[in-house]
């Protein structure tokens, strides 16, 4: 599975891709479409991406997550297109020898994804209106550099 897809996300596929007999812990995170946003009723959601950059950033984020937390496997796939309430917009799968690392890694990966990956949410409300959610500006210096809290010596990004 590539990193950006317009197909329904299937965590079981990512789990099979990452099977590893040395691992005792598997953490899966899924972001799912909620029926409300800041007090307004949401009917569905549309995600768009700038794919050339998004693919590269997600690939690098997988690698950085593994290096930073010492986890054995990390896969991230983000869906684009129209999503119904309850559907998963993103799936992160982490496997590691021990569970603490897997939880930390998965949480850092989704937090960082939200700051680095050129993807946008468009909320479609039940009243017929829609609005892009405001977001986090990307750094002009590249995907990895704008997040000063994430730039420590454990960072492994090449750029």
């Amino acid at each position, binding site marked *: 599975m590539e990193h950006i897809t317009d197909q329904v996300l299937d965590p079981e596929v990512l789990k099979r891709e990452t099977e590893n007999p040395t691992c005792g812990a598997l953490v899966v995170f899924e*972001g799912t479409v909620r029926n409300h946003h800041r007090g307004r009723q949401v009917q569905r959601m549309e*995600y*768009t*991406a*700038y794919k*050339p*950059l*998004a*693919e*590269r950033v997600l690939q690098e984020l997988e690698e950085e997550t593994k290096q930073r937390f010492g986890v054995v496997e990390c896969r991230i796939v*983000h869906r684009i297109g129209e999503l119904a309430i309850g559907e998963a*917009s*993103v799936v992160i799968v982490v496997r590691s020898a021990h569970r603490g690392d897997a939880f930390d890694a998965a949480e850092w990966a*989704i937090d960082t*994804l*939200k*700051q*680095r*990956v*050129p*993807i*946008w*949410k*468009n909320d479609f409300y039940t009243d017929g209106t829609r609005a*892009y*959610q*405001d*977001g*986090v*500006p*990307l*750094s*002009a*210096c*590249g*995907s990895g550099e704008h997040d000063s809290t994430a730039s420590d010596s454990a960072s492994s990004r090449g750029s």
Partner: protein
Amino acid sequence: MRIEFYGVLQEAAGREALELPIDAPSRVAHILEELGEQIPALQSHLPRIACAVGDEVIPRSEMVTGDAPLVLLPPVSGG
């Protein structure tokens, strides 16, 4: 030079892309200035956008040749 818009910028610009009549190579900062004059609805967005060519985010000080589109990326909201 071809300029491409993503996210809320498509709404603000009323289109997904445009050809800006500008000499290449040109500095990104200069291109954005021209763009803001042509499409005033983009003005308020420009301070918070990032610019990319291909799979690289580039600083505003960079010169671009126009061989590939200049891509404008508003604040991101994935996840």
